[in-house]
């Protein structure tokens, strides 16, 4: 009852303000009148009585304030008034306001953009029903595995998957999936799309509803694949078919095999891989049809599947893991590949399955970009702090100018808290506008970020929504920056003593020292922080540079890689080698081609092959055998890549199927396995799974080259000739060195391929481009940290400029005196610059300490660079000091040009 009354009166107070105010005025007036009458009765005159009554009351306004404070609605009103007042103040200072809002928008925008990306990649749950009970199954832990790996997430083999379905008890529904690139072009140049192999229960388990037609179900994924169909994604439907409703039933080719389209997935479903998308999905059984000879499904040692399912209610990850572990020995015994050697078999049988949470989907993107993104967020946050410090400095300057106003208001009775709130309201308005603009900016910025990370080789799709986390982040930032740059100035501004500031002509004794001290502290901290960012930027830039120019053992420019896939020709094993050779000869004959060779594995392409090495011709395999990486190449490979041949010879025509087996090895192999400085002539055997092949004779030694990753230490590599390959491929991957523009070469190769046979699938990519794309992460960090570093320096220098100018202003009198006593221009300039040096000295010292700490923290992200790099520190320090001194020179010059008389007159 009381609350309702309270509310009612309060609302009346809000909306019928005039009335309530008038009533109060009347009531107080009546009180005064009665008090006056009483005093008159005691013998005073009317005037005396009135005066006495008023004094006793203590000021009508003051009483009114007291009454208002007891009413809750006043606080809303006050806040509203404060905001209006703040807004007005900002409108009257457009320069300051726009500068402030701009810095805030940029700072908050940058932070939010990066956070948005982090949120999308790491924190957001999959856009399906009930993501909380999603989990997957894999071998935990898996340190090493043997066989064929064909996926970003090669967790399981088909045989293991089948067993899991039978033996698991913790999932109410579980399915398997595998991402795959498929060619949907009928012939000629490939048109690759992002595909998904899924088991029959995939869509059902995820509770996805079709947008058109129907989705895959268990009947579509039967052994033998009697009636396979394909589901296309919503975006693919829009892109390739214009969203036309008659797409159902139309045929689509997957690696030249036709499949009917049976349905369209909804727009919100993009697969279970965070950061990626899919164009079409087919049943697991179809993989065998599409991949033919190279199919993974029938291989017991083919690792290509990942699993995802829903845990039963009440089942936790831990409980599921223990159930899976219990059934693991049986599963692995039953699925042991027959071609494993004893060591591989032992390792395989020791595997244990376990469950892992999958509510945020799976993501290799997360693995790669999570750390750099957190780092960039930290850098962006520091930039925001520096920007806020500038704002704080600006506000402090304004506060000095409003001293008299503050003093007056304090004198007539305003409470300090009230004034502080009012000043904070101004900061709040700035922060809110800045944050709103920043949020908008972030939207575009994050899209640009994703676009710069997505490549043709590796396309990304990140679902950049603005969910509650992002909004919360932006709001928190706004509030924090408001407090950061608004509170200190507000407190300072109101800590004036009214008596002092209201004196005629006084600049105020509370001005200067303490306020200036705070501004100095702010500038020093800005210098320290911007130095740290600058050092970081330099380190990352150097790291990128070193990585980009690392000696890879080959010349990466000017190489075009083409894959001529002649699988459709269905050639028998014996014919394949000669056909590939013919293709190579024709490509070599193209005018403009300097050299060309076949290579099954192109360096740094993400593909690889390795096997055990058995030294000599007779020794049996041991528990642990040396491992080497492999490549199968044609003669001329090393010449094409410009990898120096250090000893012996390259492969030639005579190294064909009937001849003794030969191999070329790299330096590392010579050192570590052959243990000889010139291993030419040494014999060894290779163990592929449980077969021992050889003996091979080493006929040549080449320089070490990078195999899988630019960052790797040299590994042992063995090259064998294409002509002696045990299972000839149905494609020829040719590396071509040319000085022609690639577009010309590509048309020439297409022409040549067509002439040889119209039934081939061809694709191309530039070698250099592929390698550069592998450096995206480093490039992103280097570019953004460089941008932030530069921004930080600019902000810090602006702050310094402001403080030095202020100092000159403050000491005008002193400068005037000095000049009139005979000081020349030079000494005045020196006087000012000394101040800068002092601030620099302190700031840089702190900055160096911070930089060392910071560098240590990011040491793992640096390539071939010690974090305590003295040269980098010196360069950064010198840069910052130089820019800072240059910026202070202007105020110093102004100071030296002061007219002494003018200066002296200034109080």
């Amino acid at each position, binding site marked *: 009852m009381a609350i309702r009354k309270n509310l009612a009166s309060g609302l009346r107070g809000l909306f019928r303000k005039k009335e309530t105010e008038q009533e109060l005025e009347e009531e107080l007036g*009546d009180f005064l009148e009665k008090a006056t009458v009483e005093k008159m009765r005691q013998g005073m005159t009317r005037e005396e009585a009135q005066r006495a009554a008023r004094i006793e009351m203590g000021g009508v306004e003051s009483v009114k304030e007291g009454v208002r404070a007891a009413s809750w609605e006043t606080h809303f009103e006050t806040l509203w008034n404060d905001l209006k007042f703040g807004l007005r103040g900002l409108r009257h200072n457009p320069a300051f306001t726009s500068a402030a809002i701009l810095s805030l928008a940029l700072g908050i925008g940058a932070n939010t953009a990066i956070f948005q990306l982090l949120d999308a990649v790491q924190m957001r749950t999959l856009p399906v029903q009930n993501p909380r009970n999603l989990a997957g199954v894999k071998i935990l832990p898996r340190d090493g595995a043997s066989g064929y790996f064909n996926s970003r997430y090669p967790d399981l083999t088909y045989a293991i998957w089948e067993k899991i379905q039978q033996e698991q008890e913790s999932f109410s529904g579980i399915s398997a999936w595998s991402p795959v690139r498929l060619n949907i072009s009928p012939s000629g140049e490939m048109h690759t799309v992002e595909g998904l192999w899924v088991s029959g229960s995939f869509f059902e388990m995820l509770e996805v509803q079709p947008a058109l037609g129907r989705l895959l179900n268990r009947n579509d994924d039967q052994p033998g694949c009697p009636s396979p169909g394909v589901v296309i994604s919503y975006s693919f439907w829009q892109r390739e078919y214009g969203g036309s409703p008659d797409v159902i039933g139309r045929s689509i080719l997957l690696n030249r095999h036709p499949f009917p389209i049976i349905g369209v997935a909804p727009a919100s479903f993009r697969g279970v891989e965070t950061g990626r998308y899919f164009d079409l999905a087919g049943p697991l059984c179809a993989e065998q049809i599409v991949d033919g000879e190279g199919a993974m499904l029938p291989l017991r040692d083919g690792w290509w599947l990942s699993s995802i399912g829903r845990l039963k209610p009440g089942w936790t990850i831990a409980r599921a893991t223990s159930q899976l572990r219990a059934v693991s020995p049986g599963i692995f015994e039953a699925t042991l590949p027959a071609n494993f050697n004893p060591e591989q078999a032992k390792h395989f049988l020791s595997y244990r399955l376990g469950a892992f949470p999958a509510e945020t989907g799976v993501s290799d993107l997360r693995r790669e970009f999570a750390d750099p993104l957190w780092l960039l967020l930290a850098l962006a946050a520091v930039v925001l702090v520096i920007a806020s410090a500038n704002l704080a400095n600006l506000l402090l300057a304004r506060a000095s100018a409003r001293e008299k106003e503050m003093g007056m208001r304090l004198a007539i009775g305003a409470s300090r808290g009230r004034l502080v709130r009012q000043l904070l309201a101004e900061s709040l308005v700035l922060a809110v506008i800045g944050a709103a603009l920043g949020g908008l900016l972030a939207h575009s910025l994050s899209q640009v970020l994703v676009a710069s990370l997505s490549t043709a080789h590796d396309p990304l799709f990140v679902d950049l929504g603005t969910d509650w986390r992002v909004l919360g982040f932006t709001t928190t930032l706004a509030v924090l920056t408001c407090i950061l740059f608004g509170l200190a100035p507000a407190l300072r501004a109101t800590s004036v003593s009214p008596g002092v500031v209201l004196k005629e002509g006084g600049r105020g004794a509370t001005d200067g020292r303490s306020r200036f001290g705070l501004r100095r502290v702010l500038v020093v901290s800005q210098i320290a922080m911007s130095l740290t960012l600058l050092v970081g930027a330099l380190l990352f830039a150097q790291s990128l540079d070193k990585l980009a120019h690392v000696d890879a053992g080959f010349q990466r420019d000017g190489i075009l890689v083409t894959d001529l896939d002649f699988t459709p020709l269905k050639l028998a094993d014996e014919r394949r080698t000669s056909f590939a050779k013919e293709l190579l000869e024709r490509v070599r004959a193209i005018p403009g081609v300097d050299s060309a060779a076949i290579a099954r594995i192109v360096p740094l392409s993400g593909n690889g092959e390795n096997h055990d090495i058995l030294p000599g011709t007779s020794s049996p395999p041991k528990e642990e055998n040396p491992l080497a990486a492999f490549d199968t190449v044609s003669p001329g490979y090393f010449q094409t890549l410009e990898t120096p041949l250090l000893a012996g010879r390259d492969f030639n025509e005579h190294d064909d199927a009937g001849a003794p087996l030969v191999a070329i090895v790299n330096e590392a192999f010579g050192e570590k396995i052959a243990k000889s400085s010139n291993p030419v002539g040494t014999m060894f055997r290779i163990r592929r799974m449980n077969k021992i092949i050889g003996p091979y004779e080493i006929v040549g030694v080449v320089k070490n080259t990078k195999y899988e990753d630019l960052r790797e230490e040299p590994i042992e590599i063995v090259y064998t000739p294409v002509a002696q390959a045990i299972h000839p491929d149905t494609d020829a991957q040719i590396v071509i060195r040319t000085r022609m523009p690639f577009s010309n070469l590509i048309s020439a190769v297409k022409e040549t391929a067509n002439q040889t046979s119209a039934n081939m699938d061809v694709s191309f990519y530039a070698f250099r481009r592929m390698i550069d794309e592998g450096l995206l992460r480093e490039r992103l960090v280097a570019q953004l940290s460089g941008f932030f570093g530069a921004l930080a320096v600019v902000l810090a220098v602006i702050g310094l400029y402001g403080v030095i100018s202020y100092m000159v202003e403050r000491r005008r009198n002193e400068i005037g005196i000095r000049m009139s006593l005979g000081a020349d221009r030079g000494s005045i300039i020196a006087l000012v610059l000394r101040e800068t040096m002092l601030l620099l000295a302190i700031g840089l010292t702190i900055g160096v300490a911070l930089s060392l700490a910071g560098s240590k923290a990011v040491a793992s992200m640096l390539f071939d660079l010690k974090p305590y790099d003295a040269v980098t520190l010196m360069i950064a320090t010198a840069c910052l000091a130089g820019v800072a001194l240059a910026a202070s020179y202007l105020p110093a010059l102004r100071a030296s040009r002061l007219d002494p008389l003018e200066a002296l007159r200034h109080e």
Partner: protein
Amino acid sequence: MTEPSATLVQGTLDMLILKTLALEPLHGWGISQRIQQLSRGVFEVNPGSLFPAFRRLERAGLMESCWRTSENNRRAKYYSLTRAGRQKLRSETKEWERQVAAIARILQTAS
């Protein structure tokens, strides 16, 4: 020279105001005079504390107000106790008496 008035704690002031209204409705001046009278001049509550207290008590539902003509023929706001106010006064008085007795006991026994 009058003795300096004692300052009143907020809660106590509220109670005193309610008490003065126990007999009859009064306007602001009347309440202030009544407190002064009844306390024999010990308490002189200034308007700066009174009027906010009136607003507070009214908002809390312990007092209600209406406008009437007062003795000098001007309109004045008269306050009166509500039922809740009377209850509160009763309970506050009991509590106050309890506390006063306890303090008195302590002061008597301490040397």
